[in-house]
């Protein structure tokens, strides 16, 4: 507890010096804040390269927004809020580019604002459920129910007609529901 408050104080001192234009303070801030932000970003996105990029972008935004830090408040929640925004913005950009497979479930669970443990469990359950679907059905489910695409957009993307896209998404959700229900049943029996 004492060590934790020492850390918070150290980070706050570095942040205040950094606001005053001290270049060495940014090094200290990165050393102290970097691991915290990395852990947080790892809980949202698993891919190590993606986490590195997100961390760098977070620190760039920390730099741009450094005047928004209020020295009377703790640094960590402020920095975590920036990291969360950076993550969500990156998801939005990828979604706009149509990078469906990369965005996947991490974003959905993270954007729902769940706690870390709950998010990990939900993600694993969904991933397990989705793994049982055919690739075409899985993509239709993710595009429609996760990313909110219309059936016409999905049809264009997957090279099928709208009715087929609708059917795939509907069948996929039913299959997913059954698989999740079966998993719940097995867990209860165990």
């Amino acid at each position, binding site marked *: 507890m004492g060590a934790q408050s020492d850390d918070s104080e150290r980070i706050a001192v570095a942040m205040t010096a950094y606001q005053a234009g001290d*270049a060495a303070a940014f090094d200290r801030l990165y050393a102290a804040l970097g691991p915290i932000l990395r852990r947080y970003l790892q809980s949202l996105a698993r891919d190590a390269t993606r986490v590195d990029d997100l961390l760098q972008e977070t620190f760039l*935004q920390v*730099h*741009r*927004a450094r*005047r*928004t830090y209020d*020295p009377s408040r703790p640094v960590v929640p402020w920095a975590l809020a*920036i990291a969360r*925004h950076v993550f969500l913005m990156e998801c939005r950009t990828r979604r706009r580019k149509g990078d469906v497979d990369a965005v996947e479930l991490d974003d959905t669970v993270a954007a729902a604002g769940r706690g870390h443990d709950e998010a990990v469990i939900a993600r694993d359950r969904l991933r397990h459920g989705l793994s049982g679907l055919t690739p075409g059905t899985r993509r239709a489910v993710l595009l429609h129910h996760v990313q909110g695409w219309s059936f016409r957009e999905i049809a264009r993307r997957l090279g099928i007609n709208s009715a087929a896209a609708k059917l795939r998404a509907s069948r996929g959700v039913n299959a997913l529901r059954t698989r999740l229900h079966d998993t719940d049943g097995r867990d209860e029996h165990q």
Partner: protein
Amino acid sequence: MDAMSTSEHSLPDVLKARVLADLRPVRPLASPWKRALLLLPIGLALLALTPWRYGVRHDIGGVYLWGLSLLQVGVGFGLVVASLREVLPDRSLSGRTQILLVGGSLAITVAVTYLTWNASLSAAVPVSPADRYPYWKGCLQHTVLNGLPALVVVLALAIRGLLWRPALVGGLAGLAAGLLADASWRTYCGVSEPAHVFSAHVGGIVVLAVLGAIVARIWTWATGWR
């Protein structure tokens, strides 16, 4: 393992170069309340502008005239605070707060319209059909034009923060500016019919809100903020 943790915790050269290229002392932003206080003189000046230039309406009493306008100024001021709070990363507005702010502002506008209409029934000057359009146009124009200075000031204050949701920040700023402008203009406009008030006065507020959202969005694109 050591090598890994060293590389993980050491500052990347690219990041360091970008930060050092733009490292200058900055003054932390004051709290949203303190920053919003800058708008108070503008709001009060706006409130005084119309009566000073055009005179006041005589169909309602002082409480309905000044009391309800001051209420609108208060709500507008609260929206300015919310807009300036939204640009602080760890204090951004929750979905529920956003709904409360927008819904509450609209509810108060409807209440002000109803109370004014009710109070002015006995002394209301009927508007001839031929005058309806010029009245509508004049009130819409005055609400929008009077609100523009306040909108510019709120946006200028907001862009010093982090505009992750520019449309929300600009929309709230426009809504605030619109309420401040209408608080002033309604002290002169003697037409209390809800159809006129909603289409011209509330219409002007909505125009400012949309304008604020568009300008904030364009600003983030133009400056490459995101």
